[in-house]
């Protein structure tokens, strides 16, 4: 059963088309993360679902009810904002009960719900304070509580954690995950933090320029990105892209532009469709899937590389190097001894690589 279904949604700001014919359906109880670069229309999409923006075309269903023309408060959604958006002149309790008062609930019911929500979020002791007297993490808890008390089907989060410092962010992230497991609501969560997306999501939707590029589980998005944009967007450090050609020599092989002694055999790569003719492509290899030293020898493709620069990052070290004039990065264990100008044997498995058409940038 679909909790949210969006058909052919379009939204313009004046002449600027921000969302173009967008389709999306979210299952009941699912945690969907919208991920994308700044300005791609994530907040806009969320606001459309919430009914805060008047759409130009399309339909929105929540719980199989067409809510396209409904007021935000009638849609059965709760929303949490990046800047918390707490009413500064009301106490925490006032903030939590504002929506319930608007819905004209009885005093007892309000009391009960506020108590319940504040227990879940552990903010009982803060109920009488004003938002100004709260820390960032506490404020965001109250903001979540405001959605919680409304007892709604769908939660919408617009970058709820990006105003917090790194440590608090991790804490609250886990808490949101726990909340989701406990409540089993549908949640749509906007972020541009990949880690948040990967750790929280049942499915991730990658957006670009008002279109959803790929909608899938974090694992598949990581291992099988549908195009070069998604591949480059997900993963940190980003994927290596080597420009070259696929030649058909009985088996498909990759020829790097600019020349390279290796010509990797791609026969165990799962092509969407077999490639008959010569084709210009990008070969994408994640830095994490490159192995070094003894292990590299066992890989279908292995070769030596000169180290140009390296950046120790704690457990791992990121090494910058070049293949045939094209940039190539990979990770090595912190204990590997490396020095600038030295060489390393590295290897990878083309089966775990991604290949994209040079022009359309679609996965092959």
């Amino acid at each position, binding site marked *: 059963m679909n909790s949210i279904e969006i058909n052919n949604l379009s939204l313009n700001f004046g002449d600027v088309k921000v969302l173009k014919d967008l389709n999306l359906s979210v299952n009941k109880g699912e945690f969907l993360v919208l991920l994308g670069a700044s300005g791609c229309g994530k907040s806009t999409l969320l*606001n459309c679902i*919430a*009914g*805060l923006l008047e759409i130009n075309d399309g339909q929105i269903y929540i719980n199989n009810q067409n809510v396209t023309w409904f*007021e*935000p*408060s009638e849609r059965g*959604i*709760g*929303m949490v*904002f*990046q*800047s918390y*958006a*707490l*009413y*500064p*002149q009301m106490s925490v309790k006032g903030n939590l009960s*504002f*929506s319930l008062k*608007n*819905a004209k609930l009885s005093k007892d019911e309000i009391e009960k719900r506020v108590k319940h929500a504040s227990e879940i979020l552990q903010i009982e002791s803060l109920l009488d304070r004003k938002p100004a007297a709260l820390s960032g993490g506490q404020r965001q808890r109250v*903001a979540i509580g*405001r959605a919680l008390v*409304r007892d709604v089907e769908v939660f919408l989060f617009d970058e709820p954690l990006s105003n917090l410092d790194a440590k608090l962010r991790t804490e609250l992230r886990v808490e949101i995950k726990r909340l989701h497991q406990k409540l089993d609501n549908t949640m749509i969560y906007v972020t541009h933090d990949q880690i948040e997306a990967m750790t929280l999501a049942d499915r991730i939707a990658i957006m670009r320029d008002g279109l959803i590029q790929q909608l899938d589980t974090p694992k598949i998005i990581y291992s099988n990105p549908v195009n070069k944009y998604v591949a480059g967007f997900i993963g940190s450090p980003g994927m290596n892209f080597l420009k070259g050609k696929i030649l058909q020599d009985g088996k498909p092989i990759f020829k790097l532009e600019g020349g390279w002694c290796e010509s990797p055999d791609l026969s165990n790569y799962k092509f969407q469709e077999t490639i008959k003719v010569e084709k210009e492509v990008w070969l994408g290899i994640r830095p994490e899937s490159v192995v070094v030293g003894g292990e590299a020898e066992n890989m279908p493709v292995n070769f030596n590389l000169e180290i140009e620069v390296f950046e120790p990052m704690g457990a791992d070290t990121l090494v910058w190097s070049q293949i045939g004039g094209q940039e190539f990065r990979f990770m090595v264990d912190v204990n590997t001894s490396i020095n600038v100008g030295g060489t390393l044997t590295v290897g990878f498995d083309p089966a775990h690589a991604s290949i994209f058409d040079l022009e359309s940038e679609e996965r092959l």
Partner: protein
Amino acid sequence: MTNSQNNSSVVDPRGPKPRKIMSRRNIILYGTLLVVAIYYLIPLYVMIVTSLKGMPEIRLGNIFSPPVEVTFEPWIKAWAQACTGLNCDGLSRGFWNSVKITIPSVFVSIAIASINGYALANWRFKGANLFFTILIFGAFIPYQIMIYPLVILLRDLGIYTKLPGLILIHSIFGMPILTLLFRNYFTTIPEELFKAARVDGAKFWGIYFRVMMPMSLPIFVVAIIMQVTGIWNDFLFGVIYTKPDTYPMTVQLNNIVNSVQGVKEYNVNMAATLLTGLVPLTVYFVSGKLFVKGITAGAVKG
């Protein structure tokens, strides 16, 4: 600027650089400011001393000399006995008229303008900006061109020369600048707050009264200050849209001072003038920074 090279060349410079208080720069700076300040204060001083002297003393002395014999007679006369035409009940009637005009006008004009500003900032509808632009243009159009049609309108509504009429007029002509003030203020309130309130089920008026208004008290105070002084000081609308019974204080003051009949009693005139200026001056001195904020916010952001 301050240069202490000469005396410090022998010692090793250390710690804060010595500053000369009587440097040339300071003398010029504070000297100029002082002279200008005196120029600005003279009229107030003259008003006060004149209003405290008796007529014989005024005829003999000069306007700057302090009163030899302080008398409050002129103040009492100005308040209760000064004559305009046939009425000889002083400025008190004008004062109460002004109070009766100012309080409702301030209230009504701010209520209307704040709601307009709120609608413009948060609930924009198609065409809203067109009306707003016309409204702002209206602030610059000379009132003279709209005066007479409004006389007709008020006459048709049966409130010409009555207080409700003048209140309406003040609300109309106060609208452009106040609407601008409130619109600009409301747009600085984070939009997410407004969105949150909508998700929480508050409607147009609910958000205005429960969320926006409590957050905007400072701007309401600024608007009140602007309107109280503006409406109290108004002369043109008072003289056009009221009649002698309902004349506001400024009009009555002008009539008292500039009336041609009788002997001129300058001390009474100055007492009356001071009395009229007292309300805005009090507002000004009490509100201080907020007054400045009000007039600059109303102007600069346009």
